């Protein structure tokens, strides 16, 4: 798994590639939690477009991010769910829980 972090306007984009499983999800968790805690970050977006595998530990990491962001009054969203990743979300019935950007271009749009 590789992680790259980018700033797009007021959003922080965490770009994940490779596999998110029991071995790698602790690293993703650390990154998400860290970015959520950073002062100027109002919205954290996790881009899963290049993820070829995600399991329940990866999903749990994302759910935890959503919960923490709620407590901190910040926004937490996902971007680019490919077919494989989307299927795991649908198994977990979590497709509708997250705000999902279908493509990164929409991150440039101003909210409202």
């Amino acid at each position, binding site marked *: 798994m590789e992680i790259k972090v980018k700033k797009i306007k007021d959003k922080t984009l965490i770009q994940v590639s490779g596999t998110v499983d*029991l071995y790698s999800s602790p690293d993703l968790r650390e990154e998400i939690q860290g970015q959520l805690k950073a002062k100027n970050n109002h919205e954290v977006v996790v881009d899963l477009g290049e993820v070829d595998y995600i*399991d*329940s*530990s990866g999903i*749990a*990491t994302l759910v935890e991010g959503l*919960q923490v962001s709620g407590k901190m009054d910040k926004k937490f969203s996902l971007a680019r769910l490919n077919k494989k990743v989307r299927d*795991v979300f649908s198994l*977990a019935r979590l497709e509708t829980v997250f705000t999902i950007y279908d493509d990164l271009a929409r991150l440039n749009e101003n909210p409202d």
Partner: protein
Amino acid sequence: MAGKNTSEISALKQKIKRLSSLIRISSLLNSTLDLDEILNIIMLSSKKVMDAEAATLFLYNEKEHALTAQIAYGKVRHKIKGKLTIAVGQGIAGTVAEQREPVLVNDPGNDSRFMCRIDKKTGFVTKSIICVPLIYQDKLVGVAQALNKKSGRFTEDDLDVFCTFANQAAVAIESARLHREEMDVQRIEQELNLAQLIQNSFLPHIDNMECPEMDIGIRKTAAFNVSGDFFDIFPLDDRQIFFIFGDVAGKGIPAALFMANLLSRVRYLAFRYRCLDQVVSNLNQEIHRISQRGMFTTLVAGVVEMDKGTVQLVNCGHLPVSFYDAEKKKWVSVIGAGNIPIGIFPQVDFKSENASFRKGDMLMIFSDGAVEAKNRKGHEFGLKRINAALPRDGVSAQEIVDRVYSGLKEYCGTERFKDDVTFFALGNCLRPGKFERRICSSPIMLRELRKELELFLERYNLSELLISRMILAVDEALTNVIKYSYSGNTTMPIDMKVEARKRSIEITIRDYGIPVDPTRLRVKDLENVSPGGLGLNFIYLIMDRVKFDPQDQGTLLEMVKFI
């Protein structure tokens, strides 16, 4: 006195001789059941006992109401045997047959009943006749006659002896006839059994099928020994399987012979053309050319393309085919392009249809005998009941046809059906295979193992979604072992086995840590969004059967996915 005594003694001696002859004949008659042999004994003995120049035995032919000379002894026997037929009521023998009374004529020239044309034709000169009916249980069997007593005229005594003799002969002929009929029935039965063996040899032997990726089930019962239902399945090459199932109009031997002819043509045409449409239209032309009295055939034929996961189907006047969609776990009736039966018109443009036929999918084809089989109240089993009896879990093709057949048997309350009943199931199944690994309980091992498992599963032409889900289930199970059974200890062993069976993938995972208590396993409430506990949900959602079996040390987890 002395003279009278001498003649009386000689007459008595003669009587004794005759009686002993009769007893001997009687035992001879009872010694055989062969009709020809019996008739010969009768005539040879009657000629001798009656001291006659010639003797004839007529058998009664009920259909023609006439007598036919079956056996003749004497100089002109070759002109009589089998060639002489006399209508009942005609001539002396005909009169005896009609009136069922014996007749003794010592001067035939002056008897109006006598037919002199026979003498003229044969050159025999009839001087005296003794003629008696052969009657068995009030039924006329035939007439026996002795001609020209060598030592003078026939007497009333002769008549008595001949009558006694005739009674015995009638019994012997009738029992020999019955025996012959029984033998005929037995012979036909034996031939039918043989025919059944021969017919079965035409049908494919599924144990020898050269295609391990086809799961085949067959169940058939013939209305008579032999059947007009037929099927065949064989690989055209590595990746194409040809199959055919049909029902020849009619049943019994004619249908069976026709079916044998048809099957041999199918193989020839299939290898010659290797194209379903051409095979069927050529078969139609040939069958039309040879079929007698409008004998037609309904059939379903197809070619399975293993690599594409498709089947090309043609249905010529046959019932719909039941199709199992493994992904939707649903049976549906499909026609597969409707056409007229083959053998009716010489030129027909048969239409075929392509359908998806992936791993786990199944076709079930059956003869109309199955649909039209009736229960005691006269109600048909019907298409609906056939489809309702089809099982939905991943059982083998043989089990599918067995279950439908037992449903039919139960409904009808018998296994003797009026028409041939055949069920044929064909599944696109997995080639048996195995994948075994022992890994250590470190999260870093998981990625490599998933890759290996993916390579193994990809050999089975399974859908991408199914493969990635099964990998997810295995990964979740291993994650749980690492996290809970081994509490994060990364050096412990885990044994994994993945086995491809015909219609299922069976996975076992064995660890040697803290045994799982199945009663304390909780499936997460998915409505409640929270991290953790999702893995077990995934396993239950993905796999069809999950069983945690705690061992003395560790747990054996068994998971089955029906394909």
